């Protein structure tokens, strides 16, 4: 197949527009109504550049990506043009589209597990693409596959080609998918949230790969993501989408330093930032209100005006154009000249951090352990023991201080959720002791008293599944009140209304079904349910991870306000170090069911820190593109925990491993220099760690 490759041109000398989208609108006609997902957007991608498309869920960014592949369903009505090398994709015949896909335009999807065929060896899947599209011999296809696997940084490609997808970790699967996308030297690569389902450490390595691809591959890349930090890391130019429109387009540097649309400025304000040098935590400035509904067909007004602090009458009467502010920087706002970083208000410091200076522990866990499963024997009950139990959490100790927040971080599989479930009693502990307000907690729910249940609540990750879809949303709140506060039905409904208002919801939603509320509203209902019964400690298991940044900021503010008012303690579990850093007073770093580091937040975040913490910190994407971070990258994934570790639990992946020591002897607990409560489990002397890390 002749792909007509352009000769490689030095970057930035010749403008070489690959794909041009002109005034694209997409409308979905469905049984539930007509939705206008994309409202007239235009942009172009050049060869050798990465265009980041960023926006919150429902803004139409994925629709754009699918439209560029020609993958939109029949219910979608497309207006405008998607020009690829001068030809309009949306009107192309399907046989012609098929020639483009894979050959010249390739796509990488969010979930690598569903993009790969689980019944085929990964090498064969790519061979097939090569033989089909490039028409080369099987022998040459195999050579090329190995080369591709080398290019995307897969270790030991000769062996990996013979593996099945389930034998690879998520990060490796995504590398295979990227290799498959690159197989036919595409001109345009579309990546739709390729790192969203992955751990931070894996995400960082994939982002490194994308950045390096940009220089090696002579293609344009469209990178779609909801995460501003990720976009800042990989893109050259950024287009910010809101309600199906591009509201701002500029170079990455300009966007993050000099945002010229109130929405972009607001988004940047919403991202939790680490405490400043003098230890002040600033309140997040959440964007109030809701996204402009896509069911509205036409609008002759600024779609952001209802949430904008600068909104004036002009904004309601006329739709602003995408005005050129300076070369390469456009903004869809009448008042873009007035936009400064502080239009959303000067961030106020959260001053209440000091007024609860008790160091009394509300919850104290010592030697807590949980193994899942039993020893499995070869012949059900006879024969040798073949499969040991999974050591999910192994003898960990930690404390939660009264009125403070303990953040728990770690990759998936590190045991964070098991710890949370053991505390609330959903998963019984095998060993150890949990003291709650100086009383020992029973390991399972029936052994706990009603007071303990009401004082120890939990909020789950997925707001949609934490509310019963067949019952009104107020159900869980009313039940909690009846159970814990002894109110009768009428009183509980009255109190539920108060709680509803306290979390910023309208009482009219009380009897709605969960499906009628947005994700953010559902999570507020879940919070109201947790607040009912005056809890002393709330365990938040990834409670804000599924929410968009602007909604996440609202929920974080709500949590902070509640803590300030009632002195509630939180255990805040998240894989997102940025959020944990923002909310926590103490941080517990878990790895493979072991404590890597535990101590006051500022001590944990500063050097010296455990090499694993260091890796997590350096992997977290930052929104400031200027900051050059130390690059520690972890290879591989959390080990399977069937056997007790001989030496240090982290030795298998540690970049600072001491041969002969770390894999033989358990690491000692070292007390950090800045605080006596700061513990680091590592062999390397702290002085040396500090010197290495600075």
């Amino acid at each position, binding site marked *: 197949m002749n792909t007509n490759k352009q000769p490689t041109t030095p970057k930035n000398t010749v403008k070489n527009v690959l794909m041009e989208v002109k005034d694209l609108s997409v409308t979905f006609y469905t049984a539930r109504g007509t939705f206008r997902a994309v409202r007239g957007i235009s942009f172009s991608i050049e060869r050798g550049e990465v265009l980041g498309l960023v926006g919150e869920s429902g803004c139409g960014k994925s629709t754009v990506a699918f439209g560029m592949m020609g993958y939109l369903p029949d219910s979608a009505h497309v207006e405008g043009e998607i020009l690829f090398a001068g030809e309009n994709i949306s009107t192309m015949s399907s046989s012609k589209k098929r020639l483009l896909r894979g050959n010249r335009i390739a796509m990488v999807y969010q979930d690598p597990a569903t993009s790969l065929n689980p019944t085929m060896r990964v090498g064969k899947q790519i061979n097939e693409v090569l033989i089909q599209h490039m028409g080369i011999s099987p022998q040459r296809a195999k050579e090329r596959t190995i080369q591709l696997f080398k290019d995307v940084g897969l270790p030991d490609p000769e062996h990996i080609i013979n593996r099945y997808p389930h034998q690879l970790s998520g990060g490796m699967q995504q590398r295979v998918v990227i290799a498959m996308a690159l197989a036919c030297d595409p001109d345009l690569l579309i990546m739709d949230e390729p790192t969203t389902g992955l751990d931070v450490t894996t995400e960082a390595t994939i982002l490194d790969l994308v950045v390096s691809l940009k220089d090696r591959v002579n293609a344009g890349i469209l990178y779609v993501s909801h995460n501003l930090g990720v976009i800042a890391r990989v893109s050259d130019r950024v287009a910010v989408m809101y309600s199906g429109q591009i509201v701002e387009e500029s170079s990455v540097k300009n966007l993050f330093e000099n945002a010229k649309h109130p929405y972009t400025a607001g988004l940047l304000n919403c991202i939790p930032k680490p405490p400043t040098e003098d230890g002040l935590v600033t309140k997040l400035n959440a964007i109030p209100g809701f996204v402009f509904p896509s069911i509205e067909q036409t609008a002759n007004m600024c779609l952001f005006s209802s949430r904008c602090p600068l909104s004036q009458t002009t904004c309601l009467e006329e739709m602003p154009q995408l005005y050129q502010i300076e070369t390469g920087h456009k903004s869809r706002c009448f008042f873009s000249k007035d936009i400064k970083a502080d239009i959303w208000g000067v961030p106020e410091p959260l001053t209440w951090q000091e007024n609860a200076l008790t160091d009394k522990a509300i919850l104290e866990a010592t030697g807590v352990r949980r193994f899942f499963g039993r020893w499995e024997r070869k012949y059900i009950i006879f024969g040798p023991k073949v499969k040991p139990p999974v050591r999910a959490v192994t003898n960990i100790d930690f404390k939660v201080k009264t009125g403070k927040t303990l953040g728990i971080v770690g990759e998936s599989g590190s045991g964070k959720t098991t710890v949370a479930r053991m505390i609330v009693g*959903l998963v019984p502990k095998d060993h150890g002791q949990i003291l709650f307000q100086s009383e020992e907690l029973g390991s399972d*729910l029936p052994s706990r008293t009603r007071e303990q*249940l009401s004082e120890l*609540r939990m909020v789950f990750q997925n707001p949609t599944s*934490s509310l*019963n*879809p067949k*019952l009104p949303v107020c159900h869980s709140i009313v039940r909690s009140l009846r*159970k814990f506060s002894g109110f009768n039905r009428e009183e509980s409904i009255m109190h539920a209304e108060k709680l509803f208002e306290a979390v910023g919801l309208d009482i009219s939603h009380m009897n709605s079904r969960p499906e009628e509320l947005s994700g953010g509203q559902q999570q507020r209902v879940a919070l109201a349910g947790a607040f009912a019964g005056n809890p002393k400690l709330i365990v938040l298991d990834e409670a804000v991870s599924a929410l968009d940044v602007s909604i996440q900021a609202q929920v974080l503010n709500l949590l902070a306000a509640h803590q300030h008012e009632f002195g509630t303690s939180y255990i805040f579990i998240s894989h997102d170090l940025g959020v944990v850093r923002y909310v926590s007073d103490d941080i517990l770093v878990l790895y493979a069911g072991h404590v890597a580091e535990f101590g006051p937040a500022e001590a944990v975040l500063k050097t010296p820190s455990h090499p694993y913490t260091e890796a997590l910190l350096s992997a977290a994407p930052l929104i400031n593109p200027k900051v050059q971070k130390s690059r520690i990258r972890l290879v591989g994934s959390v080990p399977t925990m069937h056997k007790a570790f001989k030496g240090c639990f982290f030795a298998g992946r540690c970049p600072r491993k001491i041969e002969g020591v770390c894999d033989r002897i358990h690491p000692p607990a070292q007390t950090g220099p800045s605080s006596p409560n700061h513990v680091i489990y590592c062999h390397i002397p702290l002085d040396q760690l500090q010197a290495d890390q600075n």
Partner: protein
Amino acid sequence: MAPKLHTNPNLSKHLKPLVWVINVIKELLKTSWRTTSGRIGLTIILIHIVLATVGHLFAPYSPTALNSNKAGDLISLSSPSWNFLLGTDQLGRDVLSRVMSGARSLILVSTCGTALGIALGSLVGMGSGYKGGRTDELFMRLMDGLMSFPSLLLALLILTTLASRPIDLPLIKPIWDELLIIFTIGFVNMPRVGRVMRSVTLSLKEMEFVQSARLRGEPTYYIIFREILPNTMTVVGVEASVRLSYAILLVSSLGFLGLGVQPPSPDWGLMIAQSRHYLVSAPWIALSPAAAVASLIIGVNLFTEGIRQARGLPQEDKP
């Protein structure tokens, strides 16, 4: 689907489950009505129900009357004519009248039997699925054991065992036969419903709303009935109508074997059984009740198909 939390404050607490069941049935009917097959199925079922309830009023003859001609001879085995649209049977009874009124006990018994089966099966399935562990293992092996019998054989076993004991309670005695069949149908259906309900419960009990109910300290029965049960309604609806069609078949088979309604009351299964000697000379006697049974089952199956299509559920069928 379920009633809202605080509407109808005057309604007594005990009526609530009933209202709820009615709402669920209404919802299922509406769902099925949205598709073509559902509409056809519902129409067929409706015709059968009307015939079963008021059919005897419109029947040209009494279903048990032995018709004779003016000379006083029985008009037996008369072929379909204008006088007897579907002919007469060996005793000169009008087949049309018998078919029209023969559905009453069949529909009643199989519906009640299915309802009992759903209730028993849900109880066992949800309880065992929610409890898990050894309890689950024990109950499921028991159910497997029951399922290893062919349904008809199991039904015969239960019926013959129970029917040998005479009953002397004044209220129950007249309907004792029907009660026995209802119980048998319920019992035979229980393991199959139980399996389905268990698998739904297993996936639902991992949901976070169930976990949060456990964290509220709700008792097990509350979690099962208030939190899990409402979410199983589509499954229950589909399962109920699948079971209903098998129940109709089973009741007719029992009638055919002489274990159902006793003669001379009209019953389709019994009619087929009695007419099998005349299959060659007078096929209409067997054909009409057989067609009636078949059309009722087809109607129920089309109704099920309608729910499946409207809800986008996969096609599946197990005996």
